């Protein structure tokens, strides 16, 4: 299948590292007040989520001027390990964490910066997310939002990154068990890969855009280990049919599909916060049944389009080129796509 969407030309995961420009460091969002503390700025709301930086996403996503960062770039909490590899560091280690308001409600938020080391989990990066989740147990926000944009573990700090991912998953279940929804938003250039995919799967709800990819092994990793016959990582259309936002939404791997704008992610987050499943035995029994049914029904499928056809979509081949509005309508008619089993 030929790529039919401009998204297919976009780079996949593990972008070359580029440090965050220190010039933007520490600046509190101040632009674009609309007269209401409970509204975000209309111009910034139309910004592309994919193109925005982590800081731009947070500032535009939350109610205007409500974001307060914890351990911000002025504190210079940088990786103690990257210099060993002669690699540049970022003042925020590629993640922004803090508090703000979403439609007036207090929330905690973490946003990964996919343009620094592919948004990967290093020691400081991971510890900031873990700290935010632990803080949620004390300050009891209306929700915790994780804006994923990560290739997974940062190899230069692999053991620290992997352990932090395990800590974050444990902390998410504790926050959820305390009745606080943890919602993941996935639409950045690095996707949610590796341990980032596992953390995403631990959240109560996930929203994804077409560009959002969720996966454990990335295309390059599969190709390196198993060969191009197993997975040609340069075949972008294949990548999207296997792990892209539309496939995840249709199969119930994500709970909302949104256009690539800050406004769409904001609306989806508000909706998902209001209907987050509990973290208990009933939910996990339901998830077990849901995932077992998926393997039974689709275990022999070779391609995403085969699964979509079995889900009852008449023209499965047309799904990749569908507009967001048309796709959302189709997804609404797929019973498997929507559930409380996560």
């Amino acid at each position, binding site marked *: 299948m030929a790529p039919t969407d401009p998204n297919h030309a976009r780079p996949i995961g593990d972008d070359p590292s580029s440090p965050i420009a220190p010039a933007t460091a520490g600046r509190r969002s101040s632009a674009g007040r609309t007269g209401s503390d409970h509204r975000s700025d209309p111009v910034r709301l139309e910004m592309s989520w994919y193109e925005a930086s982590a800081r731009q996403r947070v500032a535009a996503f939350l109610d205007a001027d409500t974001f307060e960062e914890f351990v911000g770039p002025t504190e210079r909490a940088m990786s103690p390990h990257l210099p060993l590899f002669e690699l540049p560091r970022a003042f925020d280690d590629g993640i922004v964490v803090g508090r703000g308001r979403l439609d007036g409600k207090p929330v905690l938020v973490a946003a990964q910066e996919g343009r620094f080391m592919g948004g990967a989990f290093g020691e*400081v990066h991971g510890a900031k997310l873990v700290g935010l989740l*632990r803080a949620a147990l004390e*300050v009891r926000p209306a929700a915790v939002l994780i804006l994923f944009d990560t290739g997974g573990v940062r190899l230069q700090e692999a*053991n620290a990154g992997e352990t932090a991912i395990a800590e974050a998953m444990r902390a998410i*279940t504790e926050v959820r068990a305390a009745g606080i929804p943890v919602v993941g938003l996935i639409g950045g250039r690095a996707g949610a890969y590796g341990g980032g995919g596992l953390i995403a*799967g*631990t959240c109560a709800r996930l929203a994804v855009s077409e560009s959002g990819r969720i996966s*454990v092994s990335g295309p390059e990793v599969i190709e390196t280990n198993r060969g191009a016959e197993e997975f040609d990582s340069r075949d972008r259309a294949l990548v999207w049919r296997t792990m892209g936002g539309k496939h995840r939404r249709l199969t119930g791997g994500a709970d909302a599909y949104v256009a690539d704008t800050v406004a769409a992610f904001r609306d989806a987050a508000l909706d998902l916060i209001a209907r987050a499943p509990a*973290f208990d035995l009933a939910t996990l029994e339901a998830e077990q049944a849901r995932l077992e049914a998926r393997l039974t029904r689709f275990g022999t499928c070779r391609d995403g389009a085969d699964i979509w056809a079995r889900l009852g979509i008449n023209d499965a081949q047309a799904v990749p080129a569908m507009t967001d509005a048309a796709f959302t309508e189709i997804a609404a008619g797929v019973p498997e796509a929507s559930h409380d089993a996560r």
Partner: protein
Amino acid sequence: MPAKMALDAILASLFPTGRSVAVTDGLISGEGSLDGGRLVVVGIDGDTPLGVEGALALSRTVLDAMKVGDKAPILVAVDSDSQRMSRRDELLGLYECLAHLAKTLLLADRLGHPTVGLIYGHSAAGAFIATALATRVLAALPGANPSVMDLPSVARITKLPLDKLEAMAASTPVFAPGLDNMVATGAVHAVLDPAQPLDAQLSALIADLPAGDTRDRLGRERGGRPVAQAIAERVVSQARGG
């Protein structure tokens, strides 16, 4: 590196009076008796990669253990490969299956089942996170070889020469594969002595489980993660203020 202890020898030392533990397609499940009660065993043997079916088989066992109502301790014994790397596994949502397995173990812990990991061979990446690292404490046996990625692969991706990486690995626990390094980061709580009975060592671990997640504190004390605990605490402290 010391030789890997075989699963049969581990089970014999854990359950001197007998057990009912099966290994099917590399997946361990069963139970034995410990201190007069039940000990549930799940896990992965034989350097087996963990794919969608394996993850759901293990999570089924953990869910069943929760339904019994005896709050039996759960041992997660691991000698695995990484997650199974394939187009099919990702197509079918491996991230959901692995996260689901981790969630069942974390819920069991919440519901009062002591959960202990035991790495006795290899494990890596997603398979490691979804199993042994989703327990309250992770123990290891000498000969265990946890890793995120082997050094030749790290060399390929970081574009650093392998000999330079090997030299760096000798002095820097934060990225290098191996048990000692995972102990230093705090991921591995304790290393057991294979020459002593494992049942008593496991009972002692269960009797002395930490109340919460102590891995970042251990990482600071042992030097493998020098700043993680302080950073997390700073975030909590700033969130508390204001």
